[in-house]
C-alpha cells in the first residue's frame, strides 16, 4: 500500500470516501492524486518505454494492451481498503492496462454483455487535453451519461449495473503522438 497517496489511508478520509460512495447514485468515487508521486512517475515511465501490441476489432475496440504487473492491485491490503469503502467483501482484482492513442476507442458493444460488477480504472498520462477525446463514459437508457474527469493519477470506482455500459471516446488527431494509459478492471 506504499504506492497509494498516504492521504487515502487515513481513517477520517476513508470515512469521507465511504460516505461519498454510498450516497452517490450510481455508487461512484473519483480520487485525484491517487498514487504517490514516485509510484505514479515510475509507472508512467515504465509504460512509456513499452511497445504494447495493438488490437483492433473495428466494431468493438481499438487499443494497445500492455503486459505489466501492478503490485498494488495484487496486494491484499488494497482489497481490504476497497472492502472498507464499498462495505462489500472484495475477493480478487482482475485488471488490464490499455494504451490509447490517435484513432483508438472502445464501443458500447464491448460492454453490453457484462452484468453487475464493481469496476475501477486509473488514468495515467503525461499530457492530455480533454478536447482530444478519451473520456471514459458510462451510459444507461434514459439517463444522463456519466463522464469521468480526464485527470492523470485519478482512481475511479463505479458500481456498474447490467443496464449501464461503458465506452472510451474516440481519440482524435489533435492528440498527436500522446498516449493515454488506462489501468482498468473489476473487483470480485
Amino acid at each position, binding site marked *: 500500500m506504499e504506492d497509494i497517496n498516504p492521504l487515502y489511508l487515513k481513517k477520517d478520509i476513508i470515512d469521507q470516501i465511504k460516505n461519498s460512495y454510498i450516497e452517490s447514485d450510481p455508487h461512484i468515487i473519483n480520487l485525484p492524486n491517487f498514487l504517490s508521486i514516485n509510484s505514479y512517475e515510475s509507472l508512467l515511465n515504465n509504460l512509456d518505454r513499452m511497445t504494447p501490441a495493438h488490437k483492433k476489432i*473495428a466494431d468493438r475496440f481499438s487499443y494497445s494492451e500492455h503486459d505489466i504487473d501492478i503490485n498494488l492491485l495484487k496486494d491484499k491490503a488494497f482489497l481490504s481498503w476497497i472492502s472498507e469503502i464499498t462495505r462489500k467483501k472484495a475477493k480478487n482484482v482482475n485488471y488490464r492496462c490499455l494504451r490509447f492513442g490517435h484513432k483508438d476507442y472502445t464501443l458500447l458493444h464491448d460492454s453490453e454483455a457484462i452484468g453487475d460488477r464493481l469496476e475501477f480504472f486509473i488514468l495515467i498520462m503525461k499530457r492530455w487535453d480533454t478536447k482530444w477525446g478519451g473520456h471514459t463514459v458510462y451510459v444507461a437508457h434514459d439517463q444522463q451519461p456519466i463522464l469521468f474527469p480526464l485527470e492523470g493519477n485519478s482512481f475511479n470506482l463505479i458500481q456498474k449495473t447490467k443496464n449501464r455500459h461503458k465506452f472510451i471516446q*474516440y481519440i482524435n*488527431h489533435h492528440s498527436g503522438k500522446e498516449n493515454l494509459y488506462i489501468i482498468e478492471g473489476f473487483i470480485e
Partner: protein
Amino acid sequence: MKINISDNLDSLAKTFRDNSPFPHIVINDLLAERDAQNIRKSIMKEKFEKKHSDLFSLSQTNDLSTTKDLALKELYLLFSSKDFIRQISKITGVSLKGKIDMAGSLYEDTDFLLCQDDRLEKRSIAYIYYLSSRFTEQDGGALALLSDKEGKPGEIVRRYIPVWNSMILFKVSSQSWHEVEEVLSAKKRYAIGGWFY
C-alpha cells in the same frame, strides 16, 4: 432539376454487383453543376444539430421530407420519385418499397463515424450524395469499406474521398461494414444521405 444517370442501367448494375468488398457504386456528376451548387447553398442554410455517441461525432439536419427549402424539397421529391426508385432498384437488384430517408450531414475537424453495418429497420440501400469540394487525402473524411471476416469487420478494402456532386450507393447487409474516417482539417464535409427502404 434532373438526375443524370446513364441509360445503361445493366452496366451500372454489373458494376454495383462486382464491386468489393460488398455491392456498391459511385455515380459522378449526379446533378447539373448549377443544381448541385444550389443544393449546396440550401443545405448550408439548414439547421444542423451536433450529435455525439460512442460511434460518431457529426452534425445532422432533420429529415428533409419536412424542409421548407424549395431546392431541397425538389431533391427529396426527385429521390423518392417512382422513376428514380425504379432506376435504383434496377442498378442494385433490390426490390424497393418507395420509402426513403434523407438528411444533411456535416463532418468538421475531428468528426467521424466508426465502423458499423447500418442494418436497422429494413434499410435496403444506403446512399450518400457529396456536396463538399476539393477534399484531399490530407483532409480525412473518406468513406472506408471493410471486408467481412466471419461476421466481424476485417480490413479496409476501398476508400472513397468525397468527390463533389457524386453519389455512393451500397447494399445494406450484415457485411456492409463501413466507416467515415476522421476529418483532419478545417474543411467542411457536407453531404446528403439516407436509405432506400
